[in-house]
């Protein structure tokens, strides 16, 4: 195999371990099937076609691959939820609706290495017994959709897709399905409803667990782009070998996307847990801009709970328990969860001391108010309410009591909605108030509590004698 050379200026950082992103920004690389096959492309599919489907699932389970979409649920276990006596068709859906603010990894895989995804999907489809698979790609990736469609037709021509894949008797069709700009389509049941041509209202669970009752009420596996790509690599080295990368229960590599107030924002594929927050920000991203101090970090996409600079956490149990600084948190699933946040989709947003916390929170709240699907009450009414309160905080028209109301509104959403969007929109507010209450209250004025604030009442009050 030839040495991998990257485009000048876009070389990976020394601490990266590129697996899924191996071909991203690579000199002399193109998304064609010829280029992909020139370095062993589709070999794993050929291998898979000679295996028992269950054996593939077992390898994925051995690898301990956790979903890269946000929840971090083990992929192999998810596959195992398909009812054993199932007689209905099974569907596989690749969730390429990457819409968590702060996350921007799928674009590069799809644009530069589409066949990696298609091979991963083909292997996974075979493993779960899906003859029909869809790539649900967000509408904002028009070019990506075209690239994928071209790649699919190339794979078709080579016999990797279509009837009787590689003479194995297994049929598989993959189609690209474009979304139309809705964050909620990243939620797997919302995505399924969208794919059924309905409003993407997430379904209630129970009874609609996708692995049992998904697309067209048939068993359906929905996996993230990065997760499906990993399937190919697990098969390449074997589950046990693959599990040696990363840290126990947080295996493999994952792509971290850093944005916000750092000198060099970007994407970094690292072994899970091998890099700490501090190393990521200060070393890999070149630290903060001149004269700026770190204020906060949102570690896993905008819905993850914010971490405050200087915050201390106790991690580990019993004798292993130790106190660590926020910057010492290893970027893995379990530690971030133990610190009260989450690894989520790997989108790290860095906020320095030049930013107003009220402004940041308001921006996030505006996003969630815009993206709430409106199906269930707490999120529909609460997300816009929170946005309106932070609008007033930013405009200097809020009172300290409004911060308490804001907090209680968030807590009235959290845990009471149909889907995880409830938490996604409540956690930012909850955590920002927990950790930056003083600053938020500092942007308010007690005198505002007496004022009438909505224009309607204001006009009515003008008539008061």
């Amino acid at each position: 195999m030839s040495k991998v050379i990257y485009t000048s200026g876009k070389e990976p950082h020394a601490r990266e371990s590129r697996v899924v992103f191996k071909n991203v920004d690579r000199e002399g690389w193109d998304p064609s099937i010829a280029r992909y096959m020139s370095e062993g492309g589709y070999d794993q599919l050929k291998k898979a076609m000679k295996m028992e489907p269950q054996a593939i699932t077992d390898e994925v389970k051995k690898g301990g691959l956790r979903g890269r979409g946000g929840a971090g649920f083990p992929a192999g276990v998810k596959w195992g939820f398909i009812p054993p006596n199932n007689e209905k068709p099974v569907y596989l859906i690749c969730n390429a609706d990457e819409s968590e603010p702060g996350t921007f990894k799928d674009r590069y895989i799809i644009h530069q290495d589409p066949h990696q995804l298609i091979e991963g999907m083909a292997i996974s489809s075979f493993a779960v017994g899906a003859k029909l698979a869809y790539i649900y790609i967000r509408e904002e990736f028009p070019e990506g959709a075209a690239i994928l469609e071209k790649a699919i037709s190339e794979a078709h021509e080579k016999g990797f897709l279509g009837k009787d894949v590689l003479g194995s008797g297994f049929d598989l069709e993959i189609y690209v399905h474009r979304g139309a700009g809705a964050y909620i389509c990243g939620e797997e049941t919302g995505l399924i409803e969208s794919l059924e041509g309905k409003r993407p209202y997430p379904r209630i669970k129970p009874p609609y667990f996708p692995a049992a009752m998904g697309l067209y009420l048939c068993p359906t596996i929905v996996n993230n782009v990065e997760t499906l790509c990993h399937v190919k690599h697990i098969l390449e080295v074997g589950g046990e070998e693959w599990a040696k990368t990363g840290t126990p229960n947080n295996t493999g590599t994952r792509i971290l996307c850093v944005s916000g107030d750092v000198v060099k924002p970007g994407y970094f594929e690292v072994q899970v847990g091998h890099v700490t927050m501090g190393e990521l920000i200060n070393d890999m991203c070149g630290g903060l801009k001149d004269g700026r101090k770190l204020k906060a970090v949102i570690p896993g996409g905008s819905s993850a709970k914010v971490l405050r600079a200087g915050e201390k956490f106790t991690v580990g149990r019993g004798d292993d328990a130790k106190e660590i600084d926020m910057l010492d948190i290893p970027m893995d699933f379990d530690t971030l969860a133990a610190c009260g946040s989450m690894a989520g989709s790997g989108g790290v947003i860095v906020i320095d001391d030049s930013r107003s916390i009220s402004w940041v929170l308001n921006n996030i709240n505006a996003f969630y108010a815009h993206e709430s699907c409106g199906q269930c009450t707490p999120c529909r009414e609460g997300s816009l309410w929170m946005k309106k309160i932070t609008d007033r905080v930013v405009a200097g028209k809020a009172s300290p009591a409004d911060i308490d109301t804001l907090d209680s509104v968030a807590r009235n959403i959290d845990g009471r909605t149909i889907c995880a969007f409830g938490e996604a929109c409540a956690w930012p507010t909850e955590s920002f108030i927990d950790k930056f209450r003083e600053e938020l209250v500092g942007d308010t004025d007690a005198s505002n509590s007496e004022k009438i604030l909505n224009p309607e009442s204001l006009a009515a009050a003008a008539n008061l004698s």
Partner: protein
Amino acid sequence: MSEEKSDLIDVQIDGEWHKFPKGTRMIEACKEAGVEVPHYCYHPKLTSPGNCRMCLVEMGMPPRPRPGDDPAEPDEDGHLPIGWMPRPVIACANTIAPNMGIRTTGPLTEECRRGVMEFLLANHPLDCPICDQAGECSLQEFSVEHGKGESRFREQKVKKPKNVDIGPRIRLDDERCIMCSRCIRFTDEIADDPVLGFTDRGSHTTLAVHPGHELANNYSLNTVDICPVGALTSNDFRFQMRVWFMKEVNTIDPNCGTGCNIVVHSRQDEIYRITPRENNDVNSAWIPDSHRLNYHWINSELRLTDPLIKDGKSHRQTSWEDAIELSASKLSGLKGSEIAIVASARMTNEELFMVRRLATHLDAGYVDIVPRMEKSDGYLISADRNPNTTGAKLILGLEDPGSKLGKIKDAIIKDEVKALLVLQENLIDDADFAAEDFSSLEFLLTSYPMANPTAEAADVVLPGACWAEKSGTMLNVTGRLQRLNQAIDGPGQTMQSWEIIRDLIQNTGGGNGIYSTQDLFNLLTSEIPDFVGVTWDQIGDLGMQLVDTGETIPLLEKERQRIAKGLIVG
């Protein structure tokens, strides 16, 4: 029996253990245990989207022992301890599981309800003084029970369309809508007329019909009934009367053989609206609009209010005594074979029983009813548009209702029949008769609630009570015996048919002894074979299957399929 028992599982609700069949929804289990779980989107006849979040309750299961630990010890009644889950669950879509615990009280549930109520009211216009739903609004009810009583919402509310004309019978106020989607599910799943939908999203979500389309199916007004708030209101009832003024009487609909169970809402002897009443053996929870709205004639100007006697070409008002006496004298001079009686399948069994007595007493040559056969609509409207054909057949012994009408007409023309009694029917409009057909009659008597061409030709016109003004029983197309209850008093001097017939029998030398519909019912149930032994209480509010005609109600068949698939509770 033993099999049935094993299907029952133990569930603890608010500290008390109960047994329910497997597959019962938590909300239904609570209901059976006498605990009301507030809800908006859930409706047992529709699928459950779980979107209102009002029915959140605390749920727990016996904890699974950790590896190595001993399983928990059951208490003295054999119940395992319950490990309560930190998150609330919806009671509407989740089914019970063995040894499950449900708490509908306690801080978590109460906090959830308060929170959801606050969210629902945040953008609600709070225009209860104008809203027709006031007084029967779930928002009002639950906000009193579970709300905060004050608003923390200081922002401007979301503005949405108001007073939207979405169909010929329905008005929509989007600001009041709480997006429970009951109406959408009704039109999709039951009326098979999917014209409603949500547009926009988030807090701006708006219920709408597609531009240029309308919600016009014959079941559309049911959406008004199931709307938990005042978003959908009926044009017919709009601003007519506040609900708390109205008297509600449970009765049945007389517009077809289905006999939909209904509630008549009236005030001071004026009907303001009719709503369906749930009966899973008759009409589920629905009623066609055409039936529901067919009541305005009851208080119209065309109502007959006094007995009339023909005086030359026109009629003059008279007393009941004179009218009955005149009729009796006319009938007394005739042979039985010269008398024909046309009764109505819109009469109650008790009235038909009196018709039977009258016919026997007069030895009438002909007795028949006017049939009204049309097409079934495939839902609730049966092909038979008479409410009590089954009863008429049983009581009058009619094999083929309406088959004698032609013979009666011929007999009149041939002068074989000299007196015709038309009871609660209008032969000129509803049967194949013309005014000239009556010209050779010596005596024509009609009783009917409304002025009509047959009455115009009659020598004696008697004002009859209409269905809402009388009590009795009827048999629907499937053979179900149901109670018709008096909702209002008739106007003027109107009398119920049984009273009219009783007086006729009495004045033509027949017996007496019937003073109430109860007496009549007792006579009926002792004399007519199929009715023997039936008691008034036995019929109850929901009726009882008396005979089996083999007929089915299409909508119920569809509902049974949905229940079998587990889509709805039913």
